[in-house]
């Protein structure tokens, strides 16, 4: 009697029937609201876990690393079979490798991006190039290392050197630079090009004097992100550039170098005094982390300011 409201026209329902259906609607509504609250709570918890994990990682590395970091640690050579002293050669080596990789990858990357954004017409050719870029970005880093070892170290005879490692890292970072540069070039308003062409400029003049200057901050952001990536890579340089210990600072591009990322790995897996080496590894990790996150933060700030201006 009390549930049989369905099919009864609204006007012919008793007061009791109307109230009953309102109560049920209210219950349904509350169930939906509670489901939403419960699910949102769980999803919020997932986000907290994500950020929590990452915060935990940074906090641990920072708290263990900060104990050994001081001016000497950053500016001195290692002493006493890697158990004392500083990591200056590793900082310098990472710097050299980054320079070498960027010198190799930036011209190639920016020119590729200019072609894809300004010259290329849709077609098989462009699709092949894009497939190449996308799949190059997905190649595991250790495979780059193996490639560098076979081609630059052995075949070209560059040996384990800044040159071999720099080129290998340059190939690793190439897709990052192409994508960021292309995005920056495509973001330049069409009207810039039209205005330039209307003034009688050729295509290249338009690219050179109207498009590139306007895209420069975006391209720079991409390159900075590339620097962060290069500085943190370990596997590509393991057998192409890095060494655990070099008796002197590198003097030419054909010398092997110490590098921050490889130094961390070597400190915890090689050597005979783990109790003295592990703290140094955390110190090195903090320096590397600060370097990489600092560089990435710079890129993000640059991007936000640049987008704000547009």
């Amino acid at each position, binding site marked *: 009697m009390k549930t049989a409201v369905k099919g009864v026209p609204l006007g012919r329902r008793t007061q009791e029937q109307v109230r009953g259906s309102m109560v049920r609607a209210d219950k349904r509504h509350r169930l939906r609201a509670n489901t*939403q609250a419960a699910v949102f709570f*769980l*999803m919020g918890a*997932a*986000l907290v876990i*994500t*950020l929590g994990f*990452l915060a935990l*990682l*940074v906090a*641990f*590395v920072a708290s263990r690393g900060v104990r050994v970091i001081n001016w000497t640690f950053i500016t001195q050579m290692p002493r006493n079979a890697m158990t004392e002293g500083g990591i200056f050669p590793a900082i310098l080596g990472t710097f050299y490798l980054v320079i070498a990789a960027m010198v190799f990858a930036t011209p*190639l990357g920016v*020119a*590729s991006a200019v*072609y894809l954004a300004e010259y*290329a017409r849709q077609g098989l050719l462009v699709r*092949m*190039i894009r*497939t*190449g*870029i*996308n*799949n*190059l970005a*997905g*190649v*595991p*880093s*250790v*495979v780059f290392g*193996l*490639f560098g*070892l*076979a081609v630059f170290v052995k075949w070209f005879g560059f040996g384990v050197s800044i040159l071999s490692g720099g080129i290998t890292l340059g190939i690793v970072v*190439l897709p990052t630079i192409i994508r960021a540069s292309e995005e920056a070039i495509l973001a330049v308003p069409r009207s810039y090009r039209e205005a330039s062409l209307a003034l009688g400029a*050729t295509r*290249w003049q338009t690219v050179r004097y109207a498009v590139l200057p306007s895209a420069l901050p975006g391209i720079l952001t991409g390159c900075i*992100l590339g620097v*962060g*990536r290069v500085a*943190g*890579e*370990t*596997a590509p340089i*393991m*057998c192409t550039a890095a060494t655990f210990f070099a008796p002197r600072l590198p003097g030419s591009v054909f010398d092997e170098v110490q590098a921050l990322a490889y130094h*961390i790995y070597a400190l*915890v*897996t090689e050597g005979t005094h783990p109790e003295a080496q*592990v703290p140094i*590894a*955390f110190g090195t*990790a903090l320096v*590397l982390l600060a370097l*990489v*996150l600092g560089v*990435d933060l710079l890129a*993000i700030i640059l991007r*936000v300011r640049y987008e704000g201006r547009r």
Partner: protein
Amino acid sequence: MRHRFREKFIHAVLVMVAFSSLVFLTGIMLVLFKEGLPIFQKVGVARFVLGRDWYPTHEPPSFGTLPLIAASFLVTMGAMAIAIPIGVASAITIAQVLPGRIRGIVKPVVELLAGVPSVVYGLFGMQIMAPFVMNFFGLPTGLTALTASIILGIMALPTVVSIAEDAISAVPGTYREASYALGATRWETISKVIVPAASSGIVTAALLGIGRAIGETMTVLMVAGGAAVVPTTFLQPVRPMTATIAAEMGEAPVGGSHYHALFAIAVVLFLITLAFNVAAEHVTRRFKMKVAGT
């Protein structure tokens, strides 16, 4: 006249440069196959992929990579079991639940953390997570497939969150408005309208996450333990493909069977990651068509 020549010249140079990525990719493939081929010929593809014994330096050596391939898949599966549910839920929260101002802070922070170098994750896993796993399960060593999975899962999180969030944000606002207008709650709108519309983007995020996890080197090299045995549980040391290559490429004599075997592992690894990347690209293209076509 001079201009026309210069324009043509510049165009030609740019075309050639644009091909560099493709040239490098092809070069990598050729080198891997060329250097890996001798071992395939010597041992045979089937015995190389399905052999259960990896003793590259014994006399006579044995080049069975099943333990390494199995380890890679085990660790990747474990990592994805962590990264996909947590990552996708985080992405939905960032894109649809958080107020815009907080979102503007959380998204860059997650992207920033994607830049943490893998060797730092490795150090964290080796020095902090491994002792914890060892004591918690009462194991002889903390360097296990589980430890590697946890670290890899954490590591893949920013990638999964970032890509999935992009896909969810790309769903047109009109979808949501239409759903609200029909009286749906926010959660009903998310679960029945927005997530289905973004599903291929979310699948892309998962596929790229898998590709990244299976190719990740430093963390598994430092954390997975390194025992070349076909794994039966998560709580034993394993030796994934990437770790094997990284650990042995320095010591294998150039031109020897061991050297060729490492390239052959790289061939297998390359083909697996290529498959995931091609799949991801395919799904992305369909997603773009779907969103653009509506």
